[in-house]
């Protein structure tokens, strides 16, 4: 009876895994099909005459290489600025006493609860007034320092014993030296988690690049994909799926390689 139950559960898990994988199979299969084969009913899962030209056609329909570079700049910029300043603020909130600390922390908590998407209007007006529309900084700066990241860092730095810092001070190290040479090296898992969190957010994000751009040379990959599908009629399916494959596969490979770090990163984000 017990064995039967285990088999049943494993069967459900395998069926679930197949359901997770099928859309990817369909993506690759469609990317290899000819225009004529896509219109056929019943559809084929393994293409009869696979072609590779969709990959080139799709990628060049819109300047996707440019979109890719934009997305990378967007992620790197956010990691560079947020990945430095959020730990700094978190560290100060965790390890220093100063007037207004609890107020600062309260504000951080409140901003954590507000989804960025609610702020698209005022942020857009701000970006516009700063003259940053169609500018990389216009993409990067909104939410680059956010409540969640500061909170995450603060919670982590709270777990570091004060003695380490005190000992370094007695040795005569400056505060900046203590932070960069002692605190950051022991915080590698937390910093990794923060960086993964930033990249996941920026990689997925569509709303900022969408409203901050008026020319398609500043699009990111998600916006590029969206403008491919935006017109529901006359989507060139095989080209769209070819582009999706080109974008998805390297990311999937990276995820599988770095799975261990990503998982420990996600795990750390729930430290309360």
């Amino acid at each position, binding site marked *: 009876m017990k064995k039967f139950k285990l088999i049943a559960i494993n069967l459900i898990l395998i069926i679930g895994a197949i359901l997770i994988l099928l859309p990817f199979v369909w993506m690759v299969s469609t990317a290899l099909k000819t225009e004529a084969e896509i219109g056929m009913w019943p559809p084929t899962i393994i293409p009869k005459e696979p072609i590779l030209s969709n990959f080139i056609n799709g990628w060049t329909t819109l300047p996707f290489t440019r979109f890719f570079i934009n997305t990378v700049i967007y992620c790197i910029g956010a990691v560079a600025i947020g990945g430095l300043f959020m730990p700094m603020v978190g560290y100060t909130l965790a390890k220093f006493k100063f007037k207004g600390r609890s107020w600062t922390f309260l504000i951080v908590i409140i901003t954590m609860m507000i989804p960025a*998407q609610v702020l698209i209007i*005022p942020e857009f007006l701000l970006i516009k007034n700063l003259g940053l529309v169609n500018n990389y900084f216009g993409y990067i*700066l909104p939410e*680059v320092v956010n409540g969640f990241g500061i909170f995450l860092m603060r919670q982590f730095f709270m777990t570091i014993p004060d003695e380490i810092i005190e000992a370094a001070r007695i040795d005569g190290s400056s505060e900046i030296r203590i932070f960069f040479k002692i605190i950051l090296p022991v915080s590698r898992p937390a910093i990794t988690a923060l960086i993964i969190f930033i990249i996941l957010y920026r990689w997925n994000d569509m709303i900022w690049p969408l409203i901050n751009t008026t020319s398609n040379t500043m699009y990111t990959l998600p916006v590029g994909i969206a403008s491919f599908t935006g017109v529901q009629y006359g989507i060139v399916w095989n080209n769209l*799926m070819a582009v999706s494959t080109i974008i998805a596969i390297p990311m999937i490979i990276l995820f599988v390689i770095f799975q261990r770090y990503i998982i420990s990163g996600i795990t750390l984000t729930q430290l309360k």
Partner: protein
Amino acid sequence: MGLILKIMKIKRVNLLYFLIPGLILLLLFVIVPILYSFYISFTEFKSGSFIFNGFDNYIKLLKNKVFWISIGNTFYYTVGVIVPSVTISLFIAISLNRKGWGYTTLRTIYFLPVAVSEAVAAAIWVSVLNPEVGMANYFLEILHLPKIGWYADYNWVMPTLIMVTLWKNVGYYMIIFLAGLQTIPPYYEEAAKIDGANNWHIFRNITLPLLKPSLFFVYITSILFSFKVFTWIYVMTQGGPGYSSMLTVFYIYREGFKKFQFGYASATSVVLFLILLVFIIIQLKYFKMFETKDYR
């Protein structure tokens, strides 16, 4: 500079370098916009300037049918996503919390959709669910079931959006639950078994209470995710057919950036934020209420 130090009673000058850049960015790009959106929500945007118009936007908003449809849809979506995401990902996590290459492979597979950006995932699903030539309807045909219009059908569009969201997020929540399960010492379960507890008792009285932090985290995350959902709607439906998949963030986007009613759209943001706040406070209370015995 000296004055600021004196006011804040900071002894070490260096501290300022740590706090200030981050706080300025937080202030300028998060807190100022929050306050600014309150201000704009009481104005009307006309020929390039903001004219104060009191509560007009709010009155207009509360009378608007589409706004209420969007709120209703957002709730439908949120509840529709939370309940299955928690149960399914918890089930997967508990079942996969074993050693062996088979289970490792399955964990990787369930985690794969997290790697794909939402826009790409939405594009894939538009193709899979295409009512005329998509794979989904082909499988329904094989199973002798009637074809479905999916995202193009008034009645099916919301379940479709919930389904694709689950596909994308279940792996993420699974990881959180797996991490929570790792913190439960195995001898708890063994001790309970010796006392004659069955699987359900173990789950109900040991696993579930000890998983509460993870459960709470998943609840809050999925509420926040659901309230801000945008990409699925933008790529798959544009709020249609009709207003059947109009969710509030998409509504804000449409009113703000397609119709340039910045004041009205900001009022919508403020109302959405207030609703979200109430939601989270209720959740906090609910979870406190269920804080039963200490099992340690």
